[in-house]
């Protein structure tokens, strides 16, 4: 037998959607995490309620790599429809746990097989007819626990943690896992090198959080009070988490009244319209959407930009165009969101690259929106939003809300009513507003998406229009310097990488194999730091998950002409989260990058 491989393997469970396999996968994940072993789960699921194939990848590395791996060490083949294809993904020397009934004649000979009669075991050992289908998945958890040496105590923890809200479900699930665990002990001897052993040093102080949970918590901590949404994958779970958290933390126990309103709107047009109406009236308001939903929000986004109404739009990129692959990830809406709507519209876009940033940026987006009186987009994606990520616990905010330039009744009295809604008093492009309900005769003004002068009066005047657009550009320039700056990690290498969002995980891992400097962009409009970073490198690769190199284009536009030719582009766009190999291979092929 070869050298043992400890805590460094990727498990792929190939199952049937809607069969309850996700629960089994999460139990396994939590059991392994409980051993102190870093985990990085990726759920690849179809746009379907039940019946289509689904895959769950659980990557385990001692370093805590978070990116997807394109190499499978252990395949759990539970879906007869895909099993021949699934078999091809296993690396030579890998392991295949499969339903005994699947035919293995003429199958690969360079992998180890463990054939388990899952169907028979489920029929004979699981008493409950109603739960048999779900619990059958738990049997493979037991087999994997036996195969990899996961202590029973860790398995118990995983089950208890997964059924935190349903403790009654714990024994029946443990029983099912025991069936698989015992089957392993009774029938197999270890033929493969893979082992899991408890470890310390990486996961301490860390938690497992989905980006959507993080963003929902961020929005609550940012003080959101009006949320309007329309269900669409992968953004729906954000609002559903928000509803659950609000039921827990935002209900007055004495009166039952809610300190938040969450409206399921009739479509995305209405959802963003409601959020903008609420932002106009002074509430911290948001919507959340994905894919086609953002196209429907284009007109209203332009209104909020031009009429200068604060609103937060948390947006999840998925694969397009059109309906595309609704449950697969992408970074292909950066350019579209940045200038969403007709006319000279340009937005503030925050680009979280970790779940901690999903929390922070969702929270701080409300400050940016109020401060700059404009839509603020938090551009997440399916990978970041719907997968569990290992993260340090989030920080409690120390700053109070920044509600921006709002004139109160007292302010208006002090000014003797002398103010103008769109007059740039401070020279930063950001003007003062009043809220409806302000009890002063000079408070009211007319908000409109048509041409307006400093006093908010209707005008089609050429000068007034151009003056206003110039001021909006000035406001954007002010905001540019207030948004999260790029993060840079460099050590004087000749080659640099630029990335944003969930691509971060793959870049971190790639940099262990190749020596390159790294800048992670965290907001649009781009910081001046980007050009400075390019100037310090001979070549700079922009890595992103779209076909046309959208960030690559934006970076080139931001550079002085002599730096443009230094730019290179690496693009990954098949709907699967980018693996490190997709960065390492092209870099090694095209550049003399020191290993």
């Amino acid at each position, binding site marked *: 037998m070869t050298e043992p491989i400890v805590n460094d393997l990727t498990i792929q469970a190939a199952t049937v959607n809607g069969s309850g396999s996700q629960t089994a996968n999460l139990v396994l994940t939590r059991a392994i995490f409980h051993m102190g072993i870093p985990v990085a789960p990726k759920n690849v699921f179809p746009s379907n309620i039940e019946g289509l194939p689904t895959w769950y990848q659980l990557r385990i590395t001692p370093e805590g790599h978070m990116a997807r791996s394109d190499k499978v060490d252990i395949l759990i083949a539970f879906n007869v429809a895909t099993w021949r294809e699934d078999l091809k993904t296993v690396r030579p020397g890998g392991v295949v746990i499969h339903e005994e009934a699947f035919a293995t004649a003429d199958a690969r000979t360079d992998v180890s097989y463990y054939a388990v009669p899952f169907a028979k075991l489920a029929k004979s050992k699981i008493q409950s007819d109603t739960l048999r289908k779900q619990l059958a998945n738990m049997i493979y958890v037991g087999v994997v626990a036996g195969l990899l040496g996961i202590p029973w105590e860790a398995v118990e923890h995983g089950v208890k943690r997964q059924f935190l809200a349903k403790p009654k479900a714990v024994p029946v699930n443990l029983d099912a896992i025991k069936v698989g665990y015992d089957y392993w002990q009774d029938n197999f001897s270890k033929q493969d090198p893979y082992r899991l052993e408890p470890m310390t040093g990486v996961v301490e102080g860390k938690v497992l959080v989905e980006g959507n949970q993080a963003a929902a918590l961020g929005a609550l901590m940012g003080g959101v009070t009006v949320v309007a949404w329309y269900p669409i994958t992968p953004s729906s779970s954000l609002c559903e988490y928000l509803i659950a958290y609000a039921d827990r933390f935002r209900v007055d126990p004495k009166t039952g009244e*809610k300190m938040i309103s969450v409206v399921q709107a009739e479509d995305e047009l209405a959802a963003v*319209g409601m959020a903008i109406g609420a932002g106009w009236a002074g509430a911290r308001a948001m919507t959340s959407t994905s894919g086609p939903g953002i196209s429907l929000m284009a007109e209203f986004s332009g209104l909020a930009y031009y009429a200068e109404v604060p609103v937060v739009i948390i947006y999840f990129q998925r694969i397009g165009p059109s309906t595309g692959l609704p449950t697969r990830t992408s970074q292909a809406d950066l350019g579209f969101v940045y200038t969403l709507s007709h006319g000279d519209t340009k937005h503030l876009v925050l680009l979280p690259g970790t779940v901690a940033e999903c929390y922070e940026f969702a929270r701080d987006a409300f400050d940016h929106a109020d401060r700059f009186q404009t839509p603020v987009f938090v551009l997440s994606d399916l990978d970041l939003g719907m997968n569990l990520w290992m993260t340090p616990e989030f920080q409690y905010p120390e700053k109070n809300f920044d509600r921006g330039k709002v004139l109160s009744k007292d302010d208006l009295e002090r000014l003797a009513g002398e103010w103008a809604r769109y007059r740039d008093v401070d020279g930063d492009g950001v003007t003062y507003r009043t809220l409806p309900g302000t009890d002063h005769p000079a408070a*009211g003004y007319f908000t409109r998406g048509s041409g307006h002068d400093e006093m908010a009066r209707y005008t089609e005047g050429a000068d007034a229009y151009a003056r206003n657009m110039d001021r909006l550009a000035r406001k954007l320039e002010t905001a540019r310097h207030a948004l999260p700056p790029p993060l840079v990690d460099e050590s004087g290498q000749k080659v640099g990488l630029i990335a944003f969002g969930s691509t971060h995980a793959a870049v971190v891992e790639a940099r262990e194999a190749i020596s390159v400097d790294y800048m992670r962009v965290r907001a649009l409009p781009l910081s001046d730091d980007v050009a400075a970073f390019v100037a310090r490198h001979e070549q700079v690769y922009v890595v992103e998950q779209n076909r046309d190199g959208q960030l690559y284009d934006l970076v080139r536009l931001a550079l002085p002409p002599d730096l443009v030719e230094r730019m290179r582009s690496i693009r990954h766009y098949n709907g699967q989260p980018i693996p490190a190999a997709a960065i390492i291979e092209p870099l090694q092929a095209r550049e003399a990058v020191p290993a």
Partner: protein
Amino acid sequence: MSTTVNRVGLPRDAYKGAATTLCAGCGHNSITNHMIKALYELGVEPHLLAKMSGIGCSSKTPAYFVESAHGFNGVHGRMPALTTGAHLANRQLIMLGVSGDGDTASIGLGQFMHMIRRNLDCTYIIEDNGTYGLTKGQLSATADLGSMQKKGAVNTFQPIDPCAVALALGCSFVARSFSGDGKQVVPLIKAAIAHRGTAVLDIISPCVTFNDHDGSTKSYSWVKDHEESIADVSFIPFFEEVHVDYEPGTVRDVRLHDGSHIVLKKLGEDHDPTDRRAAIRVIEEGRAEGHLVTGLLYVDTEMDDFATTERIPDRPLKDLGEDELRLSRDDFAQFMSEFA
């Protein structure tokens, strides 16, 4: 010289707005004047009024009354969404929406219907002229079957009747009127504002430039000749005493949520404004007989409005601060630990 003021100490002029830019003789200008009268007489405090609109000739009119109030002229057909959000942010505001027939019955039909379905507390006035004035006279979805465009084209499609749609959806206040009938429009506007819930008021408002010719069923002369009021409407606000000096059996009295009363004096056949099926029948019969039935068609004073259903506090959500909105440090720490 003393100026007459209303109950909040404001003269009538305080309810005026910028000069209209609509055509001379436009029905919408009459409605603006009715609005000014109604708001002045009700003593609405301008700072609590939120004037909302979509896009079109009608949607320009909020600029022409109560200049000191906040207004929001949004995007075409989406006024209900903006109104919903603003109301949720601050329940103290009086939401007054002005829309048109294109804004309501075509591009905005979905939002119009969903606003009604939620019973959002707002007044929704449709300045209904059956034509797209601002884009020079195309037919709209409220144009009657067989009615003619100015250049002679005949409408071949069934009309969408906003009142019938509203009734079908269980709207809690449905009325129709005519811009030239101030005696009826003014008390209906007041009642719509006093009503807690969605109040739809479809006001036929002739377009003098594109739809005031023979062959149109939205012209001044057609409406004058065919209007059939189901009852004389008067409105007694909560701050005035009710004087009933009608003969018994000749009036119906509807008490609204804020203590105001709508007093309906019978004209001809008795219509019960709390009977939704009767309201639908009255509209259908009027249409079959070639009449435009006007007046208060239906009112339900019991239905909870949206914010009440959603358990939103009376205190504006916009005024809540960190103390009430953020999790406490202990709750936050506990919550984070649950992800371990």
